[in-house]
């Protein structure tokens, strides 16, 4: 009897272990699946290049197709395999990181966001490029600040930037006219922005007055484009660079969360449900703005890329309809305007089997002609002097000058290795507030605790 009991207990435990283990451990392998598709080619110069493909935009896809043709023609016998990773923001990084963990799956060239690159460098995923860069005649064309974008604490450079961006408010002049707001709108404080949104809500029904990205599905776009555009307009910031400590418990953080709460609880933004759609980013650019359903958008310099002839939603009238104005600080203090900058870089994984060929491909990607083409089509702010001086680039868009001028006030994220984790806590706090699940104080307290556990209590400091 005893043995039978024991057997049954073991059986039941095994059954529970089985069922749970399937849930617990197999998620990794489902996430990994796409990499199995990257076939191994025997040729020594089969180069795999990975980038994020999400939403209807095809600028990068078309650009890479052109570069692939050019590279394969210049290097007979070589092939370039373009690996579009179809995933939303956070999933893209996860898939890329899983691919870079093994030499069997590591791509040769990867597209890395500057906010994540320090974390991936610390993880040992990337290869320093200094030996290549020192013999590269084009490196001198890059702005000093851009060269630093992918420089790690060890002083080595791990990525070649292909552009940067700034952020501001886009507003629809037609909707503003209907609401009786000025065509040349220059908000000076957060309240000016909110009151304009309230006016639109009242006078132009059927239109979303104001959009800011918020919550987990939009990933880093929520943290940077949404939250930090607010936080850096207060007296506080995320990171105190004098003390080299992360800021917790600041009034500015709570005020920023309060702004988020106001937008969603007063109904002057999208409904929280709309905002939590993982496709919100491409929806704003390709549907809401061109269809005249969004009054004010807190968004990036690149968004007009959607409306160009090569974009996902050609809309030539945008130059007349859409105005741009800087995001004001909380009460007009500081520099009065706020902008944040990021950008992407091309990098070579440490486990790439063809680093030399990969470097040649990056050189092709950054040949002057191609660099200018991507900066123009991809609606980038140029990081190269020759591209910035290029006539095609300068005349590419009416908004280019406005967004380039914002470079004088722009702020870079504290993109240290811990930043991605801190960023995740920001979007968790935003989502809790926007859905009404937590109060501002509770969400801020949870954020403080989480940051303390991520960076260690001794690496945090209180706000001003």
């Amino acid at each position, binding site marked *: 009897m005893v043995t039978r009991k024991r057997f049954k207990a073991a059986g039941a435990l095994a059954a529970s272990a*089985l069922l749970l283990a399937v849930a617990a451990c197999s998620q990794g392998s489902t996430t990994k699946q796409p990499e199995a598709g990257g076939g191994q080619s025997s040729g020594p110069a089969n180069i795999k290049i990975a980038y994020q493909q999400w939403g209807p935009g095809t600028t990068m896809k078309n650009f890479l197709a052109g570069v692939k043709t050019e590279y394969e023609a210049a290097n007979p016998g070589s092939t370039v395999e373009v690996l579009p990773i179809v995933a939303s923001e956070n999933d893209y990084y996860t898939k890329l990181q899983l691919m870079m963990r093994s030499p069997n799956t590591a791509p040769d060239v990867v597209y890395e966001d500057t906010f994540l690159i320090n974390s991936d460098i610390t993880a040992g995923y990337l290869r320093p490029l200094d030996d290549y860069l020192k013999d590269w005649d084009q490196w001198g064309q890059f702005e000093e600040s851009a060269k630093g974008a992918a420089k790690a604490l060890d002083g080595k450079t791990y990525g070649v930037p292909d552009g940067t961006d700034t952020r501001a408010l886009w507003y629809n002049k037609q909707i503003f006219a209907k609401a009786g707001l000025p065509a040349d709108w220059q908000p000076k404080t957060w309240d000016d922005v909110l009151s304009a949104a309230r006016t639109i809500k009242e006078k132009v029904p059927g239109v979303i007055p104001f959009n800011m990205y918020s919550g*987990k599905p939009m990933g880093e776009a929520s943290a940077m484009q949404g939250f930090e555009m607010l936080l850096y307009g207060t007296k506080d910031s995320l990171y105190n660079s004098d003390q080299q400590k992360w800021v917790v418990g600041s009034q500015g953080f709570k005020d920023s969360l309060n702004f988020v709460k106001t937008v969603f609880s007063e109904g002057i933004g999208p409904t929280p449900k709309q905002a939590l759609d993982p496709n919100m980013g491409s929806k704003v650019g390709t549907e809401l703005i061109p269809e005249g359903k969004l009054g004010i958008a807190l968004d990036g310099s690149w968004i007009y890329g959607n409306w160009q002839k090569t974009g996902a939603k050609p809309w030539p009238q945008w130059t007349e309809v859409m105005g741009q104005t800087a995001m004001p600080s909380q009460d007009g203090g500081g520099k009065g305007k706020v902008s944040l900058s990021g950008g992407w870089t091309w990098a070579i994984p440490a486990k790439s089997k063809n680093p030399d060929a990969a470097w040649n491909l990056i050189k092709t990607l950054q040949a002057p002609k191609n660099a200018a083409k991507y900066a123009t089509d991809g609606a980038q702010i140029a990081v190269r002097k020759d591209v910035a001086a290029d006539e095609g680039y300068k005349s590419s868009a009416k908004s280019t000058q406005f967004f380039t001028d914002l470079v004088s006030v722009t702020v870079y994220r504290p993109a240290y290795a811990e930043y991605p984790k801190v960023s995740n806590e920001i979007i968790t706090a935003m989502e809790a507030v926007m859905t009404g699940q937590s109060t501002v104080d509770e969400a801020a307290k949870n954020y403080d605790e989480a940051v303390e556990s991520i960076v260690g209590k001794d690496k945090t400091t209180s706000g001003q």
Partner: protein
Amino acid sequence: MTTSVAAATAPSGKPGRSGKPRAANLLKMLPLSPAIGLMLVFLAGPIIYCIYAAFTNMALTGTGAANVTFVGLDNFRKAFGSSAFSNAIWLTLLFTLLSAIIGQNTLGLGLALLMRRANKLVRNFVGTAVIGAWVLPEVVAAYLLSAFFNDEGTLNVMLHAVGLPGQDWLYAAPIIAVSLANIWRGTAFSMLVYSAALSEIPKEIEESAEMDGAAGSKRLVWVTLPMISRAVLTNLMLITLQTLSVFGLIYAMTRGGPGTKSQTLPLYMYEQAFSFSQIGYGTAIALVMLAIGAVFSLIYLRGLNSEAA
């Protein structure tokens, strides 16, 4: 998979008593050895790896990816001190209670009882409909159900048609919506288990109970249920374990949101491990899930054993 587990754990009721010598037992194990080997490699292996990872700072990016170090109980301390984790535990228990123990179990039993009395046509129709939900792939079922519970979905259209106010179920009451979805999807399993158990009850016993004046609910409580109590416990154990680990259905319907209002433990684990890259912490949560499952199975096993005694 589930059916084989069911076969392995549901005792047939006729214990095979044996007093054979050890060598013969070992010989009997021989044909099983390839299966055991595979189980060890593909089942025990990952579990042991999970246990190891749960005590490290393993991550997909940052320091935890380059140098995996041992952090002792830090991950567990972090979990038990975190409000997101306790929220996930609470939602998991609620989800299991609502959808498995109450929903699937009673509905499955009810359907099985009613179907015994129904004529063949009704029986075939209901059986097909219920089992259809069970046969559908999880993602398809989740898609259908999110269309059903959506703001402009079937449920609200039906409610409006009879003059009742609707609400955005997936947004306003996500844990209720996913629980209902899980009931819809999983009831067939309980129904099949109970149908099989009920058909084992000899007709004579029921007839004599009726002769003695036990009718309706009395007969159900005093005769039928005690006769199938072993099936009830086995069924409860299986559906509880299944429901604790439901991931795809909830992920496809709500992604655990809005906020964390439907973030059960498997979703919380997925988010921490794969969206936020903290593999070590994620596996620690997986171990906690394992422990919760073990507690439930022990409770049910106790019941089964006292039945057998």
